[in-house]
């Protein structure tokens, strides 16, 4: 019963937020392209949005929804590769710095990560471009390279040129996120390692590796998920900056182009879609939290 109420209240809040955002986006549409709202009042606009019609771009003369959906695979693949890179680096480094906090190497890793927080994403991007693209001429600096369609999904992960193109943007974005997640994982692991279950496990003679991976890492995953959900706005802003730096043809670039061309309908559509994405991510983060949290799992199975 409690579940049903909380799900219902969540749905109602989400619907209210989307209606509110749709009203704001109508206002924005009128601000940027007054001609568009001339023959369309707020009620008509809301009905249109509710029926899934987000209007037509002034520049492309295509449906906005379609434009955003076309740009989505690029952003999604960039985010996917970035999160893989971040996890690949953060998990071993986090474990090491938490297990041997006094080790020289661990301390220098943490010092570097403190500096990394002060490194803006566009500066790391610029430096990487200078070294890998201009000086060494190894990697391309803009675009996605050759893409292969999988159904309606244009994937760049199946071609060599696609991988070459994703390298710099994904590495840049990962470097920007690494310090944040490394510090979080280390702090969580340090805390978990002091907890009673871990001490008991140590006393029982369970091998250290098993403790680190199954006791430490598993328990530290939870706050990481919450953190990623809570930081979603920042993650999105970083992705937008990286996309416009590397002219990555994703949603962020599409938005900045719409701004530069004063394409009102496309900007308004972006607002609504960002709101929807936001609400879904926070719902997914909550669900994932439930799945990974043994307390909640036990409560569910009861």
């Amino acid at each position, binding site marked *: 019963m409690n579940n049903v109420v909380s799900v219902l209240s969540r749905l109602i809040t989400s619907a209210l937020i989307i209606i509110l955002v749709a009203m704001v986006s109508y206002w924005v549409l009128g601000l940027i392209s007054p001609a568009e709202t001339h023959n369309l009042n707020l009620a008509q606009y809301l009905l249109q949005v509710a029926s899934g019609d987000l209007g037509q771009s002034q520049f492309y003369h295509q449906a906005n929804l379609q434009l955003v959906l076309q740009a989505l695979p690029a952003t999604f693949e960039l985010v996917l590769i970035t999160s893989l890179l971040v996890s690949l680096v953060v998990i071993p480094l986090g474990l090491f710095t938490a297990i041997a906090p006094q080790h020289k190497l661990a301390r220098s890793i943490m010092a570097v990560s403190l500096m990394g927080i*002060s490194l803006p994403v566009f500066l790391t991007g610029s430096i990487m471009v200078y070294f890998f693209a201009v000086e060494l001429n190894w990697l391309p600096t803009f675009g996605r390279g050759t893409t292969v369609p999988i159904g309606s999904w244009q994937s760049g992960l199946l071609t060599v040129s696609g991988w070459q193109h994703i390298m710099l943007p994904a590495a840049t974005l990962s470097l920007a996120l690494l310090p944040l997640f490394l510090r979080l994982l280390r702090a969580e692991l340090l805390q978990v390692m002091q907890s009673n279950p871990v001490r008991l496990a140590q006393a029982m003679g369970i091998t250290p590796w098993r403790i680190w991976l199954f006791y430490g890492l598993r328990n530290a995953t939870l706050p990481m998920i919450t953190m990623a959900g809570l930081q*979603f706005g920042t993650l*999105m802003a970083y992705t*937008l900056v990286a996309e416009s730096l590397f002219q990555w043809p994703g949603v962020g670039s599409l938005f900045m182009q719409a701004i*530069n061309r004063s394409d009102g309908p496309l900007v308004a559509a972006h607002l609504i879609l960002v709101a929807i994405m*936001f609400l879904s991510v926070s719902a997914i983060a909550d669900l994932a939290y439930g799945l990974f949290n043994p307390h909640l799992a036990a409560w569910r199975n009861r």
Partner: protein
Amino acid sequence: MNAAQYHGHHIWRRFRRQQLWLQLKANKVALISSVILLLLTVTALLAPWLSPFDPADLQQQNIMDAELPPAWHEQGDSRFLLGTDGLGRDILSSLMHGIRTSLWVGFWAVLLQLTLGTALGLCAGYFGGWMDRLVMRLADFQLTFSSLMLAILVLAITRAAMGAHDYHVWSPWLLILVLGLADWPQYARTLRASVLAEKHKDYVAAAQVLGYRSRHIMVMQILPNTLSPLLVIATLQVAHVILAEAALSFLGIGMPYGNPSLGGMMGSGFEYMLSGLWWIALIPGVALVLLLLSINLVADWLRDALDPKNIGQQQ
């Protein structure tokens, strides 16, 4: 002297008694970073008098001087210590004015955040009830959405609506307003927690019994006791605001092109970098990192120095 006054002035008392200064002298990293920060601030404040050229003066620009590398480079020109940009402007002068811009935006935006966050946090903590729930709910929402994303959306939309020319007349003020209004939740949350801890103490009860108004109790009695964490957050936030300003200017929706800012310089320098002219974009980048790092390290030290646990050990 009542308890509130006693605690409220303890930061100043400790400055006077030179305890903070001694702590600073003992901490090498903090000392170096505060010296760097001081130097940068003085340079920024004196930029109009110190800088060799005036970046806003078109008379002093010569396109023949464009794209000159720094002076230590063999093709460098001794007039331009850090080289020139694509329009022949001296990078050192733009840099000094850019740091000035960053600190200026940082200062005013943080002042605005501090005011808003303090007011909301005090009210939420002191009155509780629906006010508390509303403020904390708004804070969650704002934190998740992130101030940078909000600033990008608001500024980008304003730019699209006003057109690039009109927009850049207003953008410095708009920047301060958006960054100032968007980043209040950290202050409010911290302050609320402190107020909840303070409001059941005897001196608050005494003030209530004496019939002081809520506003007086909140501002004159409780607030002075909760200043230390606010000071630390405000210092950190200056770095945060400067970073956000740089990112927005880099995207072309922050400071106007004529108005030198570190992010804007990096944005316009990026294209030159693709043809090998690294200094136009990277020198402002290094300055930005230096500024952010020194502020972050000073804030880090301030947090430790003002922590009551450490104060106990010192005395």
